[in-house]
């Protein structure tokens, strides 16, 4: 009996709540509530005009959406596009400086789940600054994140258009590579020690979509350190060295691999150097990285020499 009443009360409360939500939704106010990657509700009374991006890839996304002039703060290593270099810095993405952010008086802060620490997010919330947290871990999620950020910033239409363009480019690559034989790809993300990626990384997703198999996909650690012997044993058919470095040391590393002709990739001369920014950042440029990767993994395919070619940052 008592339980019944309680249950009825519960229904009544739920009904009232639903009414309230409907009323709020129906009310002609410019504000909106968004749900982010942590399922937090982010309440935006107005379209954000002063945005702080707490990671380099988020800066790239905002510029891609044509919102560069609304960006008022970025983190270290936000050097793409070059205009971002002029923006005030708010620390590194692992250790953001909350004081600096508060000084910039943003009306929206965009953060990431893995880099930014929760303490900073909590402090910003207490200051009444909405924080929208994203968590793109695959190419697909990156594109979805771009659309979501566009919605939050009030440029939903443009965002969805750009996102579907990116999606089209990804689908094109997948279509061309899906029927092909999948070569074993060794992606080297660090030179000394030799480090690679496991299946929980966005790099793995790029290799997969580009029609390759990640040599180290089955390892437990996200970014495992491995020895030369392991590489010799696994016999990769393509070696891709991704680095922020340029010049001598980078070139020498390629030469180093040529000492091991027992590796199929060396025999077939499929050792490449690429710009790590195209693979490390879940930003619109990840699609450029995917196109570049597909060309490197499948040189046998007749890739059309469209505008995509010049985007690739590979050096053979």
């Amino acid at each position: 009996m008592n339980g019944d009443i309680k249950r009825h009360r519960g229904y009544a409360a739920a009904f009232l709540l639903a009414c309230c939500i409907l009323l709020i939704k129906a009310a002609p106010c410019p504000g909106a509530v968004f749900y982010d990657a942590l399922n937090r509700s982010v309440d935006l009374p107005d379209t954000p005009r002063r945005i702080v991006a707490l990671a380099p890839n988020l800066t790239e996304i905002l510029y891609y959406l044509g919102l560069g002039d609304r960006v008022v703060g970025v983190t270290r290593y936000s050097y793409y596009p070059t205009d971002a270099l002029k923006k005030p810095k708010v620390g590194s993405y692992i250790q953001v400086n909350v004081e600096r952010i508060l000084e910039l008086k943003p009306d929206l802060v965009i953060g990431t789940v893995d880099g930014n620490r929760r303490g900073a997010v909590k402090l910003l919330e207490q200051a009444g600054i909405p924080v929208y947290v994203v968590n793109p871990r695959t190419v697909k999620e990156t594109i979805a994140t771009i659309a979501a950020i566009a919605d939050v910033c009030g440029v939903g239409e443009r965002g969805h258009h750009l996102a579907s363009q990116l999606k089209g480019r990804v689908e094109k690559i997948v279509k061309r590579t899906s029927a092909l034989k999948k070569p074993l790809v060794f992606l080297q993300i660090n030179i000394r020690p030799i480090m690679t990626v496991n299946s929980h990384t966005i790099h793995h997703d790029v290799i997969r979509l580009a029609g390759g198999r990640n040599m180290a996909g089955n390892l437990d650690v996200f970014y495992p350190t491995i020895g030369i012997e392991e590489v010799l044993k696994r016999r990769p058919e393509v070696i891709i060295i991704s680095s922020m470095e340029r010049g001598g040391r980078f070139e020498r590393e390629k030469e180093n691999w040529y000492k091991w002709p027992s590796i199929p990739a060396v025999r077939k001369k499929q050792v490449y150097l690429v710009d790590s920014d195209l693979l490390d950042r879940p930003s619109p440029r990840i699609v450029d990285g995917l196109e570049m990767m597909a060309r490197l993994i499948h040189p046998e395919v007749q890739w059309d020499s469209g505008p995509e070619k010049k985007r690739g940052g590979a050096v053979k």
Partner: protein
Amino acid sequence: MRRPMYEGPQKGPLRASRVSTLCLGLSVVLLLTVVFSLMTGTASVTWSQWWRLLTGNADASDPSRLVILKIRLPRVILAGLSGFALSLGGVVFQALLRNPLADPFILGVSSGSAFGAVVGIMLGFSYNLGIPVMAFGGALLTMYVVLFIGQKKMGMESSTILLSGVIINAFFTAIIMFFIATATDDRLHSMLFWLYGDLSQSRFAESALTGPAVLAGFVILYCFARHLNVMTAGEDAALHLGVDVRKAKLVCFLVVSLVVGLVVAFSGLIGFVGLVIPHLARMAFGSDHRLLMPVSALGGAIFLIAADTLARTVISPSELPVGVITAFLGAPFFIYLLRKRGSRWTGS
């Protein structure tokens, strides 16, 4: 043969008024340091904002209120408590081991508690209880190992202590690196920062737990100040004077391990505080523990608050781990002590 303890400039019996005057003076300096630290930072807070804050007229969403009360204040409090505890720990270790170079960091007690804390993180314990308890356990374990290595037969000579500290530090740091290298998720990545001491994530909850523990620890240890005085003259002498050396030692080690473990769990590995500050205090005010303990503890608090203020402003808007600053200041001082005094207790 045991050499006499370094006496310092103190002459004649210690008067209570001297202790209270000095402590009062240092408390004033501490207060000034706190105020200075609260006023320093990336964001500038104007005088009118300060005025509104002090008169209680600032509204809750005022950014300056948030900067002062939620970002700087918890950090200053935790820095003060950590410095207080580490310096106090240094004084007590130096007396118990009759060695001027003993300090929680150098002995490896800090890395022992860090090891405990990391195991706690790996096991998914809560930050508010499980991890501090694990850190305490790690500190106790390390203390036991230090005492085991430095048993009476070998004597607690500096070389033994330093060597055991080096070994213990290397061992626990290796274990922590092992955990970081094999971690399958990103949870442990912030630990690299934490290995050099990091106060940037301070919250009031941590101070609420550390504060009472550290103050209670101080009171208990202060009750043993006379025992420590006698024991620094040698355990035989202490026994002759009717001091229960075993009990005093046990209580002191337990309390210091608890206090240091707590501090390490919340602020990471911050070195050299327990070495530099007690030494300066001993040089200036002599080695009577009734005076040395409060003076060192307050000095430690002042030192660490100042060091942390430097850490968060020197390369602003980025930050340095506070352990980097204390090591910059502390390591040269340590070498100076080694050169000047050798490994002996005796005065210059």
